[in-house]
């Protein structure tokens, strides 16, 4: 079966780089900053595949490059090298060979993103319903009543009372803002959802309800997801396979139960033992 996403050697640096970056950064060097030239090697050659309907976990501590990885996939950041082939309804698309308009189309119609910080994912200047409408308008839907109907449906689907659709996200709790982000991400029925620390900073009971919602949506809609988190509980509940990153490098990937019960890499062992 063809994967929905096939990522090969994706690399992201901040800085011009030098000949020594490769040797002086990464998990073994225990830093993502090249001491010779100051370049940050945020992601150094990440490769993975994602199957249709699969949830892949990306685990690692702050600065490991996990957010940079999904941001490249959502075109928030451009990679310096590497490839990502997206299966767009049966047509393989080399994501980073597309022009800006084609990338915007994928981003607006085929991908959904939920950020840790709702301010990055939502426009706080307009209503919750307006945030969903915005994405539908980008997708060239212009029928006012149909857009409102869709926004109402998605908010209710994600657990927000439709009566509050005309309120600003300012007036919502953190958990509700994440729900609005999820509703917005789902607006165009994208087959691929990217979730970047969606439950971080929320109360545990709110976290639990968000996780339940994500799983329920995944099962009902058959979505494929990349879930970035530093929280092993989230990985355990959501992901069938997991990628472990450290200092910009993928140090280990495998079945989630294997990663958690028989971690191979020293860093993964340290992470897992720290969580118990």
């Amino acid at each position: 079966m063809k994967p929905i996403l096939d990522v090969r050697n994706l690399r992201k640096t901040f800085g011009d780089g030098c000949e020594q970056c490769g040797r002086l950064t990464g998990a073994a060097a225990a830093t993502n900053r090249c001491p010779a030239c100051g370049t940050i090697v945020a992601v150094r050659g990440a490769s993975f595949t994602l199957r249709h309907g699969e949830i892949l976990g990306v685990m690692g501590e702050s600065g490991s490059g996990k957010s940079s990885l999904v941001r490249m996939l959502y075109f928030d950041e451009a990679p310096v090298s590497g490839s990502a082939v997206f299966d767009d309804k049966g047509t393989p698309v080399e994501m980073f060979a597309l022009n800006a308009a084609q990338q915007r189309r994928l981003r607006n119609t085929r991908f959904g993103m939920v950020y840790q910080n709702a301010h990055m994912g939502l426009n706080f200047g307009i209503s919750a319903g307006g945030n969903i409408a915005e994405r539908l308008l980008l997708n060239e839907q212009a029928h006012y009543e149909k857009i409102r109907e869709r926004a109402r449906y998605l908010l209710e689907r994600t657990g927000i009372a439709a009566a509050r659709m005309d309120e600003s996200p300012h007036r919502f709790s953190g958990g509700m803002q994440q729900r609005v982000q999820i509703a917005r991400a789902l607006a165009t029925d994208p087959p691929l959802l990217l979730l970047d620390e969606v439950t971080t900073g929320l109360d545990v009971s709110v976290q639990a309800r968000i996780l339940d919602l994500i799983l329920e949506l995944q099962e009902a809609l058959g979505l494929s997801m990349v879930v970035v988190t530093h929280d092993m509980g989230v990985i355990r509940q959501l992901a069938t396979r997991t990628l472990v990153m450290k200092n910009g490098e993928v140090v280990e990937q495998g079945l989630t139960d294997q990663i958690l019960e028989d971690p191979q890499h020293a860093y993964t062992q340290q992470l897992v033992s720290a969580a118990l």
Partner: protein
Amino acid sequence: MDGILDVAGLSKTFTLHERGATLCAFEDVSFSLGAGSFSALVAPSGSGKSSLLKCIYRTYLASAGSATFRSQHGDVNLVSADEHAIIELRRREIGYVSQFLHCLPRQSCLDVVARPLIALGANRVEARARASEMLEALGLPAHLLELPPATFSGGEKQRVNLARGLLTGPRLLLLDEPTASLDAQSAERAVEQITQARNRGAAILAILHDSSLVRRLADQTIALRAPVGARTEN
């Protein structure tokens, strides 16, 4: 007897990086399982029985050797197969019932058991009905069906775990002390369901401490003597 699983020279050594230590769980284990057979793993605690089951299920990565599973789509070495192949086999052909129930919290016991069937495309109502039948056959009180298993007793959790493992009808069933927390009557019901699975052609590999059960059920016993190896007696 058609072979379902051939284990050859399987070994597991853990490398504990932080301690700079290695720990051998078992070494050079070889045996074969046939369709419709019951094999009992017998050995003292700490000799690597659970680790062996986990290596076959791929929760652990074996350090050496092979475990060739004759799947419906050809032979697969479970030690080295692609993760997606393992996920598919777990969904359809290989069941594992651990000593402790791990499941999604906040789900009713019926949903926990029905979930793997639904994942295979079964209709939710039908899957829940079959889950309910299986749980009833294992003697789980009816009033527990709609409750999440978090507050269940050890024996109740074990029955939920067993029901979930049996319901999809796997061709290879790995059981880690399936009757350990059950009273005699409940254990008998569990044995009845396991025997039915075997009669339907499943190969069963079980860790059992109850020697009378071993004598009654086992077509073969596999004795582990970690870390020097295993001895198979037919």
